[in-house]
């Protein structure tokens, strides 16, 4: 017994550091898997508060660019609204089309990373504003990512610049589906994999989200084809996609809430259980 005690006292620094190292190792492993990193994330009161203070200061430097961007988006939306009005005068009897199942919530990005292999954004809206896990996040120019963690006032977003992200997307012209991934090399280029060889690939073509998942509506802009590569098995393409978004300077984002998510999830779970 005494020898065990002596051993513990003699090696107390080693045991202490081993213990702390194992804790950090566990936290690291945990953060490698989506949805499990509950304890150490920047969506908490402490770091969220400091980040939003920093953002309050930084905001003044970009007011002009932000205004330009919002004006641009306003103009585009106004144009869409005009064309929508023309249609709606012809056919406004079907009330199901007037209620979109997607709700949009605006938020500000208070912290943004794009230089790591797993990039996370922090935004200043949280569960108080009905933000929940797995909601999609876009900006006025296109796709950004998916909500990963929420606290009362803040939330973190796993951006598409994250090796864990895999988002369904398709060619706008031919509707061929693939998955969007990121190879960590350039924060403005992502990869679209598993595009069938039949698909007509033209450099400069637009890529949009596929709408196969409940997270994003169909047709959110992603980017344009920059180059293509036929895989070794000669059956599918890997495309390099240049994003419309500049992922290195994000300010205002929209969070997409699909009102039908619960219903769809429940239905799918029931069918799974039935098998």
């Amino acid at each position, binding site marked *: 017994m005494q020898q065990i005690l002596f051993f513990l006292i003699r090696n107390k620094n080693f045991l202490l550091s081993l213990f*702390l190292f194992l804790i*950090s190792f566990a*936290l690291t492993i945990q*953060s490698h898997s989506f949805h499990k990193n509950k304890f150490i994330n920047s969506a908490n009161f402490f770091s969220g508060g400091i980040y939003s203070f920093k953002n309050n200061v930084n905001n003044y430097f970009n007011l002009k660019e932000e205004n330009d961007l919002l004006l641009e988006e306003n103009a585009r939306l106004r144009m869409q609204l005009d064309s929508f009005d023309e249609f709606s005068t012809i056919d406004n009897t079907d009330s199901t089309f007037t209620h979109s199942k997607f709700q949009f919530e605006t938020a500000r990005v208070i912290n943004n*990373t794009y230089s*790591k292999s*797993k990039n996370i954004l922090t935004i200043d809206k949280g569960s108080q504003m009905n933000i929940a896990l797995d909601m999609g996040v876009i900006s006025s120019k296109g796709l950004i990512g998916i909500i990963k963690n929420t606290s009362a006032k803040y939330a973190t977003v796993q951006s598409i610049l994250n090796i864990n992200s895999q988002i369904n997307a398709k060619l706008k012209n031919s509707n061929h589906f693939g998955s969007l991934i990121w190879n960590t090399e350039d924060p403005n280029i992502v990869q679209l994999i598993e595009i069938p060889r039949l698909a007509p690939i033209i450099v400069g073509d637009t890529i949009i989200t596929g709408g196969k998942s409940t997270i994003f509506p169909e047709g959110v802009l992603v980017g344009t084809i920059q180059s293509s590569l036929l895989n070794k098995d000669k059956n599918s393409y890997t495309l390099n996609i240049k994003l419309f978004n500049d992922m290195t300077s994000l300010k205002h984002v929209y969070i997409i809430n699909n009102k039908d998510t619960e219903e769809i999830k429940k239905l799918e779970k029931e069918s799974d259980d039935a098998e």
Partner: protein
Amino acid sequence: MQSNVYFILSFRFIILVLVQVLLLNNINFLGYINPYLYILFILTFPFNGNKSLLIVLSFLLGLTIDLFGDSGGVHAAACVVIAYLRPVILKFSFGVSYEYNSIKINNVEFVQRLIYVGIMVLLHHIVLFSMEIFNTNHIILVLKSTLISGIFSIILIMSSISIFSKKSK
């Protein structure tokens, strides 16, 4: 006297965390290279101070950086490793009797200081990047990041030491 030391240590802890999180994490030189100045806290911790205390404080320091960077526990792990190995590296760079000669980091020779800072920084960075990337296919990326980020950090740490040290002559 003792409370004065604790005050300076906690002040340094907070300032280094804020500088790292708000300023240095946003540099992204050449796309992904950031200097990690905050380990200056571990480097300049009193050489004859309590070793267990240093290990616990380093863990907290790393964890705070992780909290802001959403990086799990990679900084905490790297900090614990260098805090534990610090006595060995001190002995290697300043000789066996560093503990009794009341050596301070700002009045040793430049070369000795560079060796000490260099080993600590590179050790920290290699643990940090290998845990962050965590993939044996990307060993080259780990080494490249360690080297470039390391040089950046060493320059920044050496200049901070000489700027903020009191004149000892």
